[in-house]
C-alpha cells in the first residue's frame, strides 16, 4: 500500500531549481534512504513531504491527501501522521524530556494527560532513556537528545517518520546509539524516509535507496543495486568518494 507518493515534484528558489521532476513513492512499512552530495536537494525534498517547504510543481500525496501548505487544517492533519526528526534535534529546551514527548499528544491531539505521560514514559524507556525523563535537553548528550526527539516523533503514533540527517550533528561515538534505535524501529515495521550519509545503515536497513544529484533523481532501487552496482556514473563517483575502498 502506498503511503507517500511524489509525482513530478519541482521546487525552485527564484530561477534556481533545487528539485527537478522527482517521482517516487513510499509503501507502508518501507524504509527509504535518500542519499546524495550536499546541495543535492535531498533534505529539501524530505521537508516538502510534511510541508515545511513548499513546492511549485507536481504533487505530493500522503494517504491520498495533497500536501498543501496553504490548506492549514489539511497540512496539520498530515503533520500529525508524518513525524519528523531533525539534524539538530530541535527539542524544546524549556521542557523536560518527558514533556517534550508528551507535548504533541496532549496539546495537539488532546490525549488525556495521564495517559499521554504514561505512554511517553514508555517511549523514553524504549529508546533507552528511562532514567532521563526529568532531564532538560541541555543536560543530555547529543545522542540522548536525538533519542528523545525520536521518542517525540513516536509519541504522535505516526504512520511514517521523516529523518533529516539524524546523525550528522553527533560526535562519532554517539552515532551508533541513534542508528540502533532507528534499526529497531525499522525491524518493527515503521515506515521511514531517511536522509543520511550513513552508507552502512542504508545498505543494511533500507528497502530502497534513492540517489539525488542537483535535484534530479538518478537512481531508485534496492540498496544492493544502488550502492553496490550503481548505473549512473555520478552515483559511482559519489560512492567512490565517500565509501572507504
Amino acid at each position, binding site marked *: 500500500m502506498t503511503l507517500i507518493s511524489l509525482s513530478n515534484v519541482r521546487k525552485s528558489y527564484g530561477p534556481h531549481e533545487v528539485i527537478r521532476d522527482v517521482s517516487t513513492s513510499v509503501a507502508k512499512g518501507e524504509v527509504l534512504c535518500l542519499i546524495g552530495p550536499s546541495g543535492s536537494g535531498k533534505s529539501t525534498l524530505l521537508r516538502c513531504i*510534511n510541508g*515545511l517547504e513548499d513546492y511549485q510543481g507536481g504533487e505530493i500525496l500522503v494517504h491520498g491527501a495533497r500536501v498543501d501548505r496553504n490548506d*492549514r487544517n489539511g497540512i*496539520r*492533519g498530515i*503533520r*500529525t501522521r508524518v*513525524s*519528523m526528526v*531533525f539534524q*539538530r534535534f*530541535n*527539542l*524544546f*529546551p*524549556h521542557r523536560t524530556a518527558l514533556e517534550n514527548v508528551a*507535548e*504533541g499528544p496532549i*496539546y*495537539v*491531539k488532546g490525549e488525556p494527560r495521564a495517559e499521554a505521560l504514561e505512554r511517553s514514559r514508555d517511549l523514553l524507556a524504549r529508546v533507552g532513556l528511562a532514567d532521563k525523563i526529568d532531564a*532538560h535537553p*541541555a*543536560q543530555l548528550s547529543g545522542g540522548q537528545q536525538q533519542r528523545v526527539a525520536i521518542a*517525540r516523533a513516536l509519541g*504522535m503514533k505516526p504512520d511514517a517518520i521523516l529523518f533529516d540527517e539524524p546523525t550528522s550533528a553527533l560526535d562519532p561515538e554517539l552515532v551508533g546509539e541513534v542508528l540502533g534505535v532507528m534499526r529497531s524501529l525499522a525491524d518493527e515495521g515503521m515506515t521511514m524516509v531517511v536522509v543520511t550519509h550513513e552508507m552502512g545503515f542504508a545498505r543494511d536497513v533500507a528497502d530502497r535507496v534513492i540517489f539525488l544529484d542537483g535535484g534530479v533523481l538518478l537512481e531508485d532501487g534496492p540498496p544492493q543495486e544502488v550502492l553496490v552496482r550503481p548505473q549512473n556514473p555520478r552515483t559511482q563517483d559519489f560512492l567512490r568518494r565517500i565509501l572507504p575502498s
Partner: protein
Amino acid sequence: MLNFIEQSELYLPVLLQGVYLTVLVTLGGFVLSTVLGLVLAFMRVSGIRSLSAISRVFVIVVRGIPALVTLFYIYFVFPDLGLSLSAVQAAILGLGIAYSPYMAEVFRSGIEAIDRGQSEAALSIGMGWGMVMRRVILPQAIKVALPPYGSTMVMLLKDSSLASTITVADLSLQGKLLASSTFENTTIFTLVALLYLAMSLPLTAFNGWLEKSLRQPR
C-alpha cells in the same frame, strides 16, 4: 546635613503626593505600552503582509515623534477632535502610545532570537501558529526580552515626568512648584532625584528576580 534632614521632614509629605501620581501614570503607561507592544510585535511576526506593514509603519511614526509632543497632541489636540481627557488619562494614554514601539521592538527581538528549528519542530507535530507561539516560542522569547524590557520600564518611569508638562502634579511638578516657592533648590531637587531612584530600584529588583526564576537548569 542636619539641615537637609530637618527640611526633608517638612517637604517630603508634599513630594509624596506627587509620588502617588507618578506611580499611577507609570503603571498605567506600563500596562498600556506592554499590551500595545505585544499586539504590534505579533502583527509584525504574523507572516500576514498587511498586518506586518501596519505594525512597521506605526513603530516608525510613533518612535520618530518625541513623547512630549505625543502628550501635547493628546491633551491639547484631541479635544478639538471631540475627545477630552483628564490630564492623568492623557498622560497614561500618551506614554502608553509613545512607549509601545520600544516595547514592540523588545518583544520582536525576543521572538526572532529563537531558533527557526523550534517553530519547525512545533509545526512538525501539527501545531498551528497560535499554539507554536504560546507553547514554544513565547516561553523562550520572554527570557531573551526581559533584560531590555526592564530597562524600558525604568525609562518609562523617568519619562513619566513629562506628564508634568500637561499639568499632572506628579513628583517632578510638585518638586518644581515647591522649589520655586521656597528657593530650597538643593534640598528639594535632591529629594526628587532620590525618590525617582527609590522607585526604580524595586523595578530593577523585580526584573532581576524574574530573570533568575525563569533561568533554565543547566
